[in-house]
């Protein structure tokens, strides 16, 4: 077993941070499901849900996958294809519907 890099490029957060992030993730999930059931939110449901899920996504990636503290190069390796994927999705939605609709053809 030879680890290539002996210079740890980052300090991992402590279990305490992990637990707190976990708690926030749970709260956000509860919010998501809550928002889904509240009729008052129906008109803004899509943006609210997108923001909530993007936040969860970012939290997991930054803290559990350590991108916040790790080498920026990993952020690049992950971020560029992620942007490409989002770009492809947006482009295809425009090509198919002429608009950015996440509710589909019926929505």
């Amino acid at each position, binding site marked *: 077993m*030879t680890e290539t890099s002996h210079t740890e490029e980052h300090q991992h957060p402590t279990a305490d941070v992990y637990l707190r992030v976990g708690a926030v993730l749970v709260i956000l999930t509860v919010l998501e499901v809550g928002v889904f059931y509240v009729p008052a939110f129906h008109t803004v449901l899509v943006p609210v849900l997108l923001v909530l899920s993007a936040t969860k996504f970012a939290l997991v990636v930054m803290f559990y996958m350590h991108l916040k503290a790790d080498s920026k190069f990993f952020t690049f390796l992950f971020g560029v*294809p992620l942007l490409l994927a989002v*770009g*492809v999705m947006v482009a*295809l939605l425009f*090509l198919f519907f*002429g608009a950015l609709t996440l509710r589909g053809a019926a929505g």
Partner: protein
Amino acid sequence: MSDARGLASWLTTTDHKRIGLLYFWTALAFFLIGGIEALFIRAQLAQPNGRLVSAETYNQLFTMHGTTMIFLALMPLGASFFNYMVPLQIGARDVAFPRLNAFSYWVFLFGGLFLNASWFVGPLFHAGILNVAPNGGWFGYANLTERQYSPGPNIDFWVLGLQILGISSLAAGFNFIVTILNMRAPGMKMMRLPVFTWMTLVTQFLIITAFPVITVGLAFLIFDRFFGTHFYVREAGATPILWQHLFWLFGHPEVYILILPAMGVVSDVLPTFSRKPLFGYPVVVYSGVLIGLMSWGVWSHHMFAVGLGPIADSVFAATTMLIAVPTGVKIFNWIATLWGGDIRGTTALHFAVGFIAMFIIGGLSGVTHASPPTDLQQTDSYYVVAHIHYVFFGGTIFGLFAGIYYWWPKMTGRLLDETLGKTHFWLQFIGMNLAFFPMHLIGLLGMPRRVYTYAPELGVGSLNLVSTLGAFLIALSILIFLVNLWRTRTRGRPAPNDPWGGATLEWSIPSPPPVYNFSVIPTITSRLPRWTTERHGPMRDPPATPPEPIHVPGGSWWPLIAAFGLPVLALAPLTHTLWVAFAGAALLLLGVYRWAFEPFEV
């Protein structure tokens, strides 16, 4: 392991140089197969109402010609140089993951054999021989490829074979990204990398992003054909246009996956034989990166005929015209490199200059498709066939041949004969222009592509005859090339470390290199380490014998065994046998587990 001989040492090899040679010979074999298919096509089209082959056979021929050339010849020929040259150019002893590298090769080999087995296994599917090879074109447009319209196993071979090959390319992609970024010799900064290595890096990024898209598109087709889904079935509300999007989202980056390595070769060959540094190195590198990025934004120009609407058409027309700019920039840089150089007209240089000339023609005819109104006149006609061949044959193949003549002495220790080489070049150059230039006219005169014959009234008989003559001239030139390769075994001049006066690291070590490549890992102080530049003298080549013993990784059987699981897995849907799937998965798992836990000292 180091200098072990015998079959087992090749089956278990993890040496990037041996894997590079395996890639080379396998890709060359597939190149010849694809070429023979092309000759059948051209013989059939030599005159109106040709009847050498039937329409069904013709469909299989052009499908397998395209698929073979792109996935089994050009990509792996490029991969052969990635394997052999990239570690040498960056001053490394091997790639980052030697066993993954072996895995990539074996998966490629099995995928290629799987696809080509379709020529012969007709009787197993209650059909004649030469009856069940893929026949839906290399682009496999849905819904023609659905079970309803292609009931035989033909498309199954294609879709499963491509899925296997994708795994090979992806595995190699991760490997070479890490190798190039992380295994460089001390002082080998990114902006000191040889351009070939740079273009390899861009290519690998395109591979790891583009191949997942085709994987998904193919997976949908597999589900449609075997499990009754409706991803491309109009009646269910779906649209076959989705396939076109997924295919070209992959397909256009794929075009650059094929051309960027050739551009890299040429960017290394030209400076060597002009005895001048590459003109505008950073611009050439950044143009390559920009081409890679922009290649993601042009895919729908393959789909103007679909009728995507004026906005989409305009956007993709604009991006397509824009991508010609960094390409054009590179061409000017190459010409400027030659300008005022101390030019030595070796065969490698002939091919590199031939590349520039032919690629300009291919690039220009490409820009003509960028305009939707003209594209509508050209699409699905022989004009497009002419374009693609100027790009892939005039471009990629000329570039790769430049690489073969340039690096063959490094890879084998023997120089290719220059007289035969130049004969090869001129015959191929004349042959390709005879074969492909008339296709522009044939297309504009109205002959559609992918038809197995045409009527004399169309008035393209003589042009087609010229094209066929050109194709056979190319075949003759390739024959001369093969003779040249064969001759080097016994009569080739032994190559010194550096037969050309090259600037890059691969020329600082023996030809062929010892198993450990560098007796001492060099320290790099300039972009042209072996040349005298304004601020630097040439580097000292590593000593002939290593001052201290070098540990070389041993071989492994497990990449081969894991790779073999994939074609077995692919046989399961083809034969509708569940236990075959379990056998394939078991092989794969066994290989991966043993691989993960075997002691593999590096």
